[in-house]
């Protein structure tokens, strides 16, 4: 028994060192790559005049698909915002995913909709489409509303894909606020493509809690007053400006947020559309279209744009956050299992050799390792084997490294988009960087563990996202 315990200690000791070294190196490399990528992007885009595509007849046609479920409170304003986006050749397809509230009635009244004899084929799997609505009022000619039986977000997006006909599709959350020029910025990589076909593009999602919003537009950007959303601002800034930017540069991007992403419709359909049996449909789609391109020997690119293009309300209570994070964990696991063939598969290049292993080890397994670490830590405290001075030294080592990474991301934000104008907000954000590892992170880790348990117990619900609604902050 004692021998086995010694072996276990020896194994953990060495394995942990190797992994720690790998992670710290990975973070440093990602930070450097994201800095290079950001600099390149900003320099390149400082010469761009987006106005040239606003009305250009040469610009590709777009369909913005917005699934909506019980969003009666906000749906009218949100559609108005979508219809006012800067772009010439686009349509807005709102999919009422079997809402139990009066969303459909409200839309019919507000936009003078009539049920039309629309013929669609179910080329992508989705629940029964009950009807397609259009307006005779020319002001709303860009709007199409689909009413269908409830089937979840992926199912609703597939219904939208079955009905829309344009070259590019934009999937968004109906309750998010898009920047007016978001489509212009997202479409640009597709228009710049030459040898490689761009099949997907995503942008930065920012947090709208506490921001001043009117007429469906962000008027003033404020840092959330509550700690929980503020910690998420820190988390999002780090993830978007450092993580994804670097992965885009490294061609290993596995995820474009479901809140806003633009895709080549033809490729999405050929790859089979959204997977309806997963709660991580956004990540799954990106991985699948990438696999489709590689399997068919087609050159492609998935692009990421660091511009803040979309604003969303994040959970402000622990209960709602727990549901969201449980869903994210289950979604990640489902995608990783579905596409396990990618793992260290040279055929898939950086996606298989870098992206997938990173996600498996550093994203999915991280909370599990952390949780086991806590159990091990408790065990050692109980047995009196823990070396407290060394514990404090290690804690300081990891804590300060983590905080410095967060502050780097604040610097990136400051040097690039500078969204928080008030000095006080930036100072508070930096303060949050110090508190987040102590109070927010352990919470998120436990929520992720819950996600794994939910998955094991087959509890595969999407989970209700209760929002306060914009303008009610």
């Amino acid at each position, binding site marked *: 028994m004692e021998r086995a315990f010694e072996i276990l200690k020896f194994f953990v000791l060495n394995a942990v060192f190797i992994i720690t070294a790998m992670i710290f190196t990975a973070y440093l490399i990602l930070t450097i790559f994201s800095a290079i990528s950001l600099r390149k992007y900003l320099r390149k885009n400082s010469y761009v005049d987006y106005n040239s595509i606003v009305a250009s007849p040469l610009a590709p046609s777009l369909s913005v698909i917005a699934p909506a479920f019980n969003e009666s409170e906000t749906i009218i304003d949100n559609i108005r915002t979508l219809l006012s986006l800067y772009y010439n050749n686009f349509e807005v397809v709102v999919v009422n995913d079997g809402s139990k509230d009066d969303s459909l009635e409200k839309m019919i009244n507000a936009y003078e909709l009539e049920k039309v004899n629309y013929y669609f084929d179910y080329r992508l799997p989705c629940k029964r489409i009950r009807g397609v609505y259009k307006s005779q009022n020319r002001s709303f000619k860009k709007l199409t509303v689909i009413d269908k039986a409830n089937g979840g977000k992926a199912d609703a997006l597939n219904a939208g894909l079955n009905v829309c006909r344009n070259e590019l599709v934009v999937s968004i959350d109906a309750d998010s606020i898009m920047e007016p020029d978001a489509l212009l910025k997202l479409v640009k990589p597709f228009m710049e493509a030459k040898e490689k076909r761009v099949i997907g593009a995503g942008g930065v999602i920012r947090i709208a809690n506490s921001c001043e919003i009117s007429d469906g537009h962000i008027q003033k950007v404020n840092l959330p007053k509550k700690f929980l959303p503020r910690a998420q601002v820190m988390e999002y800034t780090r993830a978007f400006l450092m993580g994804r930017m670097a992965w885009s540069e490294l061609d290993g991007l596995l995820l474009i947020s479901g809140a806003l992403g633009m895709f080549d419709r033809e490729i999405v359909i050929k790859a089979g559309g959204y997977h309806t049996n997963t709660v991580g449909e956004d990540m799954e789609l990106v991985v699948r279209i990438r696999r489709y391109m590689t399997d068919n020997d087609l050159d492609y690119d998935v692009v990421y744009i660091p511009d803040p293009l979309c604003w969303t309300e994040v959970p402000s209570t622990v209960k709602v956050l727990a549901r969201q994070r449980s869903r994210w964990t289950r979604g990640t696991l489902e995608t990783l299992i579905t596409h396990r063939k990618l793992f260290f598969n040279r055929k898939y290049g950086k996606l298989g050799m870098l992206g997938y292993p990173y996600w498996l080890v550093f994203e999915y397994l991280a909370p599990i390792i952390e949780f*086991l670490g806590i159990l091990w830590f408790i065990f050692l405290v109980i047995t009196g084997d823990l070396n407290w001075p060394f*514990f404090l030294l290690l804690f300081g*080592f990891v804590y300060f490294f983590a905080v410095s990474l967060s502050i780097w991301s604040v610097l990136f934000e400051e040097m690039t988009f500078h969204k928080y104008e008030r000095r006080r907000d930036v100072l508070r954000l930096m303060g949050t960087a110090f508190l987040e590892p102590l109070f927010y992170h352990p919470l998120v880790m436990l929520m992720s563990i819950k996600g794994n348990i939910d998955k094991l117990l087959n509890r595969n619900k999407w989970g209700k996202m209760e929002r306060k609604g914009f303008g009610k902050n």
Partner: protein
Amino acid sequence: MRLKGTYLGLVLALTLVTMGAMATHGQVAVDSISSDSAMVETGQTVQEPVVVFSDYASRILARFKKSPLLITILYIVILYSILSLITLLIIILIHRSRLKREQKLKDNLLERYQQLLMDYLFDDQKQEAAFNELNTVAHSRINRQILIDQMIDLSVNLKGEIKEVIQALYIRLGLQKDSLEKAYHGKWHENVKGFRELAFMNIRDANDQIIKSLNASNDILRMEAQIAMVRLSDGNPYEFLALLEKPLSLWEQVTLHELQIQHNLKIPAFKQWFHLENISVVMFALEMVAWYKQRGVGKEILGLFEHEDEHVRFTSYKVCGEIGLKMSLPAMIKRYPEETFKNKLEILHTFTKVPDEKHLKFLKNVLDTEEDVQLQIEATKAMENTDEPGISMLIKLIKSKSEYKNYQIIIRHVLDGRIY
């Protein structure tokens, strides 16, 4: 919406695992720390302190030398993190103040330049004084850059003689030297600025450099060179198209097209580029033919129906629809069976735009034989657009009991005027 990439997770996870796992190793490490401390307390050190350090620093150094490598690394990382934290905090705060200060300076200068430029352009009495003052204020590089930007902004909205006055002032102030320097600079972003300024001010002294950049590997530089060539050309603004070796992206095409509209440039006969090997240029030329309705290109476009690139063929079919080229329809019917799905759809779309009852049989055949709903819908739309004969045929089909059921749904869809 989901978010990934949270770095802190694993870092903290590993800390905890490490904290536990290191118990054994830590014992050794802490023994070492303790013995180190003991040595420091008693003043016993293994090596003599380095002279350049103070006594305290020497003791720290000695302690480091005695520590196991792991402990040393941990201390170094903690120290690095704390130092970088402090540095970053300072940088962020300084950066904010600097941004504010620069913006203020820029606003002041812009206001001043605006007034001086107005005086120079519209007040003969103040012209010389304004010139002298501009010359004085624009002493530094940054001030001159703000002045150049202001003059470009102004010239965008002006035409004719007054624009020429600005260009002359630009030369008189010697600002073209700055622009030329930028055009020949080693960094691409400087070249871009230089090309832009020279093109706005109609200075051709760096044309050799601009032509060289037409095939640069940097997208932005290449595009800016194209724009500059269009602006600086007298006769044919697009003659550089024949020189392009790299593909002309859709983004570049849109930019060139917008430039043409904004500056009301001379429109060439775009068919002259149909024969080029660079297919993106051919497609751009085709799009421009459609936009400017250059109808006398029937024969040349029909030739492109046989092009090996499917995108070129696609654009050719599209353009025939846009310019209403009826003579192309029989050739398209011939091409239809061999075409890709996307091109088939475009051919049918062209039949919708150029309705001709002579081809109803072909369209009915598509409706009967094609399995894909989009193709069926497009064929039905084309039939409907032929007016009376097509609509009668559709009504007959819809009433027919013997016909395949889908017809009715498709025809109802097409005949529903509320669907755009």
